C-alpha cells in the first residue's frame, strides 16, 4: 500500500517537472557599459549632507571618487554630462542592516529539518540555526532583484547579513552595484548577526532556550579564546586547543573588534537583548527596533547603537471616514454599545500605531542617534514610511542623517560614505524633486561612480479600492521543490470578463483558464494540467502592486510556493 502510494506521487512529481522545468532567471539590470568614468552634474541642488545644501552647484566624479563639488568648479573636458539640470543630488543611502542580495533560503522538502534529527535536544548546528561562521559575502547574489529595488530608492550601500535563525552569520558591507559578489563587497565581517529566533522542533526552540544557548556559547568562546592565547604563548605540554568555528566566530566580538547586530523588534525582545548585553558585555547594535518608545532610557543607558525598523504596521491614511457611505443614513441614530466599543478599540489601535511613527522623533528628542535597518521591509513601502516619520515630527535633515551619516558612522565608514564631499566615494542619487516629496522620482543612482539610469515607472500604484486592470502579459517565476519555473501569464478581455492562459517557457506548454477572480489588487485563478491520465489542479494568487506582483502557487497536495513577476511591455 505504502509502495503504491510512493510510485503514484513520484509520477506526479514527474508531471510537475514536465510543466515546471528549470530555466535560467531573467536579467534585471539593463545598464549599458560606461563610456567614461568621469561625470559631471551641473546646475543641480546638491544636498551634501543633512543641513548642507548648495543651490545651482556642480558635482564632478572620476573613477568612483567625488573630485569636486561646489558652485564654481572646473569641469574636465572628458566628463560626460548627466542631464539633471535643476534636479536634486543626495548622498547615497546606507542600509544599516539588511538582507539585500541575500537569497532567501529555500525550504526544500526532503532537505534537512526536524525529521533528520534523531535527538531533537542535540541537533546539528545548521538545523539548530547556529551558523555564526557563515559569511554574508559567500551568500551574496549580485543579480538578486532586491539590489536593484533598493538602488531605485537611492540606497547605494548595505550592511548585509544572511537569513537564518539564532546565529545566521557574519555581516558584510556591500555596494549595490557590480556583477559579482567580489565587485559588490566593500568590507567583510562588519557584525556578528544574532536573533532570538528558535529552531522549530529542535533545541533551542524557545526564546528562553535561545538566550541560555547564547550565554553558554559566549562563555565557552571566552574560555576557548583564553586557552588558545596560552597555547600560542607556549604550546609544549598543553593539549591542542578547541577548533570549533562556531566559538571562533565569537572571538572578534570578545576582543571588541566587532559588534553584535542583534535583531530586537518588539519591546520584550529589546529588553531581552539588553539583558544579554548586560550579562555578557558585548558591544551592541540594537537592530530592527520597532517598539522602543517606552525603553528610551534603558536603550540610552546601555550605550548600544540603534537601527530602527522601516517595516512597520500599516498606518491608515486620514480619510474622510471610509464608513461614511453607510453611516450617513445612520448618523441621526443613537450610537449603540457596539458602535461605542468599536470606536474606542479603533482609537486605541490608532494610537498604538502612531507610536511606531512618532518613535524616530522621540528618539531624537531623547538624544538617541539611529540609522535604519531594512530586514523585512518591502522596498515599495520604504518611502511611504519615511514620509510618515517626517509627518510625525522627524525633520527631513534628521531622516537624511539616519539614511546616510548615522549608518556610515555606525559602520565606521564616515570618511568615505554618507556625504557629498571631495574625496568620498561617488555614491549618490539624483531626483527630479526633493526626495521626501511624494511625487519625487529617482532618476539616476551612482554607486562607486557607476551610473544606473532609472526609467520612470509608468503608472503609480492603483488607488487601492478599485480593481486593477490585469489585461496584458505578465512574466512569472516561482521556486518549486523541482526548481525555478517561469513563463508568461496572459489575460485577455475586459474587467469582469477575463480569460487567460499560462505558459511554461521550458516546455512551451500553454494552458487556458477562465475562472478568474479580481478583488482589489488581488487576482486568483485556477487551471489543471493533465498528464499520464492524472489531473493536477493548480491555483495561483497574484497580489499586484503597480507593475509587479507577488503571490502563491498552490499545486494540489505538493503545497504552496511563492511566485512573483512583472508586467511585460505592451507589444506594438
Amino acid at each position, binding site marked *: 500500500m505504502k509502495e503504491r502510494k510512493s510510485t503514484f506521487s513520484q509520477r506526479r512529481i514527474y508531471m510537475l517537472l514536465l510543466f515546471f522545468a528549470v530555466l535560467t532567471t531573467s536579467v534585471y539590470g539593463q545598464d549599458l557599459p560606461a563610456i567614461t568614468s568621469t561625470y559631471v552634474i551641473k546646475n543641480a541642488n546638491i544636498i551634501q549632507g543633512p543641513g548642507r545644501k548648495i543651490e545651482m552647484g556642480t558635482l564632478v566624479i572620476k573613477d568612483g571618487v567625488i573630485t569636486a563639488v561646489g558652485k564654481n568648479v572646473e569641469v574636465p573636458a572628458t566628463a560626460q554630462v548627466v542631464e539633471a539640470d535643476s534636479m536634486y543630488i543626495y548622498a547615497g543611502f546606507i542600509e544599516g542592516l539588511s538582507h539585500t542580495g541575500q537569497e532567501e533560503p529555500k525550504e526544500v522538502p526532503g532537505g534537512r529539518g526536524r525529521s533528520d534529527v534523531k*535527538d531533537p535536544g542535540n541537533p546539528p548546528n545548521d538545523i539548530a540555526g547556529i551558523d555564526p561562521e557563515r559569511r554574508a559575502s559567500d551568500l551574496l547574489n549580485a543579480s538578486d532583484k532586491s539590489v536593484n529595488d533598493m538602488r531605485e530608492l537611492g540606497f547605494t550601500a548595505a550592511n548585509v547579513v544572511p537569513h537564518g535563525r539564532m546565529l545566521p552569520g557574519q555581516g558584510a558591507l556591500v555596494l549595490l552595484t557590480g556583477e559579482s559578489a567580489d565587485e559588490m563587497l566593500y568590507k567583510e565581517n562588519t557584525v556578528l548577526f544574532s536573533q532570538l529566533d528558535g529552531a522549530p522542533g529542535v533545541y533551542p526552540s524557545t526564546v*528562553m532556550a535561545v538566550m541560555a544557548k547564547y550565554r553558554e556559547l559566549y562563555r565557552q568562546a571566552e574560555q576557548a579564546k583564553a586557552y588558545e592565547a596560552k597555547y600560542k604563548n607556549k604550546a609544549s605540554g598543553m593539549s591542542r586547543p578547541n577548533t570549533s568555528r562556531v566559538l571562533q566566530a565569537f572571538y572578534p566580538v570578545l576582543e571588541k573588534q566587532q559588534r553584535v547586530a542583534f535583531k530586537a523588534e518588539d519591546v520584550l525582545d529589546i*529588553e531581552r537583548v539588553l539583558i544579554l548585553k548586560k550579562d555578557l558585555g558585548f558591544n551592541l547594535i540594537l537592530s530592527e527596533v520597532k517598539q522602543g518608545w517606552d525603553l528610551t532610557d534603558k536603550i540610552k543607558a546601555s550605550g548600544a547603537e540603534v537601527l530602527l525598523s522601516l517595516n512597520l504596521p500599516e498606518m491608515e491614511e486620514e480619510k474622510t471616514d471610509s464608513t461614511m457611505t453607510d453611516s450617513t443614513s445612520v448618523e441621526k441614530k443613537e450610537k449603540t454599545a457596539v458602535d461605542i466599543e468599536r470606536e474606542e478599540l479603533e482609537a486605541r489601535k490608532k494610537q498604538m500605531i502612531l507610536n511606531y511613527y512618532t518613535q524616530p522623533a522621540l528618539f531624537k528628542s531623547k538624544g538617541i542617534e539611529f540609522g535604519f535597518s531594512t530586514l523585512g521591509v518591502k522596498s515599495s513601502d520604504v518611502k511611504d514610511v519615511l514620509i510618515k516619520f517626517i509627518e510625525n515630527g522627524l525633520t527631513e535633515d534628521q531622516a537624511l542623517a539616519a539614511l546616510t551619516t548615522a549608518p556610515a558612522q555606525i559602520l565606521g565608514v564616515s570618511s568615505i560614505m554618507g556625504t557629498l564631499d571631495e574625496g568620498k566615494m561617488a555614491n549618490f542619487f539624483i531626483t527630479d524633486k526633493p526626495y521626501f516629496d511624494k511625487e519625487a522620482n529617482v532618476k539616476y543612482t551612482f554607486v562607486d561612480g557607476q551610473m544606473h539610469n532609472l526609467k520612470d515607472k509608468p503608472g503609480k500604484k492603483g488607488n487601492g479600492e478599485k480593481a486593477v486592470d490585469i489585461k496584458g502579459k505578465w512574466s512569472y517565476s516561482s521556486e518549486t521543490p523541482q526548481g525555478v519555473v517561469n513563463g508568461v501569464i496572459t489575460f485577455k478581455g475586459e474587467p469582469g470578463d477575463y480569460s487567460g492562459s499560462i505558459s511554461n517557457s521550458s516546455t512551451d506548454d500553454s494552458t487556458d483558464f477562465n475562472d478568474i477572480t479580481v478583488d482589489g489588487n488581488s487576482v486568483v485563478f485556477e487551471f489543471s494540467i493533465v498528464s499520464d491520465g492524472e489531473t493536477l489542479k493548480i491555483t495561483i494568487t497574484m497580489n499586484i502592486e503597480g507593475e509587479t506582483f507577488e503571490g502563491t502557487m498552490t499545486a494540489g497536495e505538493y503545497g504552496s510556493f511563492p511566485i512573483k513577476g512583472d508586467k511585460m511591455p505592451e507589444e506594438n
Partner: protein
Amino acid sequence: MRLTNTIYKLSLIFLFACVCSISQAQERGDVLIKNGTVLTITNGTLENTDVLIRDGKISKIGKGLKAASGTREIDAAGKYVMPGIIDAHSHIALSSINEATSPVTAEVWTGDALDPLDISIYRALAGGVTISHALHGSANAIGGQSETIKHRYGTVDMDGLRMEGAPRTIKFALGENPTRVHGERSGIVPKTRMGVEAVFRSSFSEAKQYMEKWEVYNSDKGKKGFKGSAPEYNLRLEALADILKGNIIVHCHSYRADEIYMLMQVFKDFGIKKLVFQHVNEGFKVAPELAEFGAMASVFADWWDYKFEVYYSTAYNAAILTKNGVVTSINSDSGELIRHLYHEAAKTQKYGDLSDDEALKLITINPAKQLGIEKRVGSLEEGKDGDVAIFSAHPLSIYTVPLYTIVDGVVKFDKENDPADMRIYPDPEETIDVTLHDREDEDRCMDMGYSNYLLTDK
C-alpha cells in the same frame, strides 16, 4: 503643511498620554486601610483594624492609625483584608513556557521569557492574586528554571515583574508527560517511568562529576607549571550543580504515589532537600512520607481524571496533606482559575473541614513557604511587603467579591475604577470585531424551542 502640523501636535499629545500610562518599574506606594476585618493568617483575625502601608511595606497594623496627608485611604469597614493571594503554579506572563526539545533543560529560565504585557496579570489581580510562580512546563524530566513574579501590572519592564530576592526554582516532571514527549515522540530516554528516574540519576551524577572537575581545576590552576585546561563551561550542568548545592528549590510535576516516593529516594541519595511536589494528586497516599522528608505539596482543589495517571484522586487531598503536617497550597495552573483561588481554597472546608485559617493558608503563607518567600509575604505582619487583597465578604464565602488588590502599596486593582480596556500594548494589526450577542436565547438553556438538546439523543 498645516495638516502635517496638526498631525504632529496630535501625535505629541498621544505620546504624552502614552508615557503617562506606563508606570515606573517596582513602584512602591502608601495606603491606609481603615477599619477592616484583618485576616492576618499568622496572628489571627483582628476586627476593626487598620493596616498602614508606607513605601511598599506594612509599617503598622492597629487601631486608629493615621497616615501622612495625601495618603490614599481605603474604608474597609465591613470588608475583609487579607494578604495578597499567592499562586505557586502558574504560566501567565510568559512568552514561552516549554522548551520541550530535550529531557533535561535545566539551563533555560522562564525569567528570560517574561511578558509583562500579558493581560492575564490584570485578571489575576482581579482575583486578589499578587504573586505567582511563572513555572516552566512539564514536558521534560528536568525542565527549566522558573521565576517568581509580583503582579506589578502596568509596566513594560520585564525586570519590574521579578520578585527581587526570591530564591531560584526549577521545574521537574514525572510520569506521562516526559515519557510521551521524549520516549514516544522522539524514541529516546525516558520511554518509561523507570527511564525518568534514570534521567534524574544520570543528570545528577554528571553534575557531580562536573563539580569535581572544576574543583580539581581550581585547586591545580595556581600550581607552578600547570598545563591543563578548564572543564568546558556547561550551563545545564551549572544549574544541576546548583540544585545539588541546595541553591534551587525543585518544583516537581507529579501524580502517582510510587513516583513521588521514587523522587524522594533519588533526592535522599543525592542529598537534595528543597522539594515541592506540584499537582501531587496521589499525595494523600504518601502524606506521612512527604511530611517526614520535609517535601511540600501544591495541589488542585478538585481537578482530576484529565489523563490516565490522574485517575486516582480525591478532593480531600489538600485536607489530608494538611492534617499530616505537609505544607500544602492550592494552585491554579490556569489563567482562569487564578481569578478565584479563594473559591478553590474554600472547597477544602466542604471536603475536609479545614478551619478558616487552615484554608486561607493554602493560598497565602503556604505557597509563600514553597517559593521561599514567606519572610516577605503570605501574611499581614508589620515589616512585610504591602501586598493586600480586600474582599466584600469573608474570602471563603461564595458571595465574596474582590474589591481592591494592592501590590507594594500600589493599588493595582480597584473594582470601582476598573477600565474597560486594560491592555498595555494593543495589537496594531488586530481586526476589530465587536459583536454583542442578544443574550436572551443563550441565558435560557432550558427553553430553546425546537432545538432543546436535552430532549434529543445527543
